[in-house]
């Protein structure tokens, strides 16, 4: 695998995993909003 492809994959994996973390944060607050 060349460097450019690896860098692209690293960026993509980081963004996906970061997005999951943000989704959990926002999701649980939204659950609190909807329940209260």
């Amino acid at each position, binding site marked *: 695998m060349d460097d450019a492809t*690896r860098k692209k*994959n*690293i960026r993509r*994996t*980081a963004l996906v*995993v*970061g997005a*999951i*973390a*943000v*989704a*959990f*944060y*926002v*999701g*649980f*607050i939204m659950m*609190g*909003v909807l*329940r*209260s």
Partner: protein
Amino acid sequence: MQMEKDSMATVAADITDHHDDHGPAKGIGRWLFSTNHKDIGTMYLLFSLTMFFIGGAMAMVIRSELAVPGLQLVDPGFFNSMTTMHALIMVFGAVMPAFVGLANWMIPLMIGAPDMALPRMNNWSFWILPVAFGILLSTLLMPGGAPAGGWTMYPPLILQTGDAFPFLIFAVHLMGISSIMGAINVIVTIINMRAPDMSLLKMPMFVWTWLITAYLLIAVMPVLAGAVTMLLTDQFFGTSFFLAAGGGDPVMFQHIFWFFGHPEVYIMILPAFGVVSEIIPTFSRKPLFGHDSMVYAASSIAFLSFIVWAHHMFTVGMPLTGQLFFMFATMLIAVPTGVKVFNWVATMWRGSMTFETPMLFSLAFVFLFTIGGFSGVMLAITPADIQYHDTYFVVAHFHYVLVPGSVFAIMAAAYYWLPKWTGHMYNETLGKVHFWTSTIFVNMTFFPMHFLGLAGMPRRIPDYSTQFADFNAIASIGAIGFGLSQLIFVAVLLTAWKGSKATDRVWEGSHGLEWTVPSPAPYHTWETPPQARIANEAFD
């Protein structure tokens, strides 16, 4: 074997020659701006050790107050602050950063990567931590004192915290951000930077358990952050997420907290499983029994950890079906955990075992963590838990999981990899004295707590009925002995550079890429990925 040694020597020479031209930066800048996984790993480990002693000093305050019945040393409010701060510091400041430090040091070496995938974010992940704990510790000096509502931060009690409250919330957010960034780095590194031909199932167990742990962190740290954000808005912005008077639900906080809190337990124990799974094969001189089943067991434990949270809340009240579900789901965790214990024992079976300090700590881990596991099964039984809840039995249970469990695994890892880090063998005699004193005193501290709990002594209290005096006195003597024993570990570290020169392989039975680089590991390693042949030799 000779060919393997030759190829390793070639790799070692190659690495040394290739990297003589650029070493670490000089002065404080090396540490402040470091993007090197080894430097950052070292900083994490030293930070964790510092927090271990600060949290340990708080434990000494707790056990000194509880050594005899009556109130003698500290104000009850300060006692509550000590229990709260001890827990927060040990969980978020000592155990978690220790494992992140080990991950930083060892994962790139083990998978043949030159560094973590996101080195600048790695620097941020670490440097956020001293700020977070500086803020948390500063609350000890604030009007109203440090947080005293327990590490679980249940409302409405935690909302009675004085000026410290927003600082607590900010510190928890920072710890969460640090953990999430660390977890992203681990996942991205393992997914994208493994040596050629190192398939996922060829990865060492420490790397595997960390990959699973990192996914757990990604899923649950934001949940904790969400919960404490809602606490903050309840306190300062007029919301009523958890305030019954405003139509909110305080029990919802408990559900959200434990949705984070139970996987958090596995965040602190899965990397420990990984460490022990590296060490036992080395000192048994046999491959790990059932590597793939270990991977599936760790994954199963991680999955189950998401569906058992309400076993912390049986006394809150829930429908019978809920009680049954959470009870049986919790008991189910014993199955993959049993697979792991079985595999460790099977690895040792008919092995050519020796008992150096890392192996001693690992063996104690297997025995003593299992005691914590058994008491966990007892606590899973709903009707029994209603009796045990909020007693010292629970304190005994989770301390068996976390001290001779997680902390012993961290100690085992430190002794195991120390020669690779320093290039010298540590003092084995001191190591063994450290092990035996720790093991004797840890049992002296926590085993009597089972009896105290079964006899009904509640947790988180500064005073107790005289019927509990004897076991409390024994526990307090044990705690002070355990605390002093850790000074021996400091002596081991201070003399770590005085021992004989370590070989590249260090331990006769060690396998894996990290043992193919020189000792001490050069500042830069694996800038050229290891050849598939070398990687395969290291793992087969």
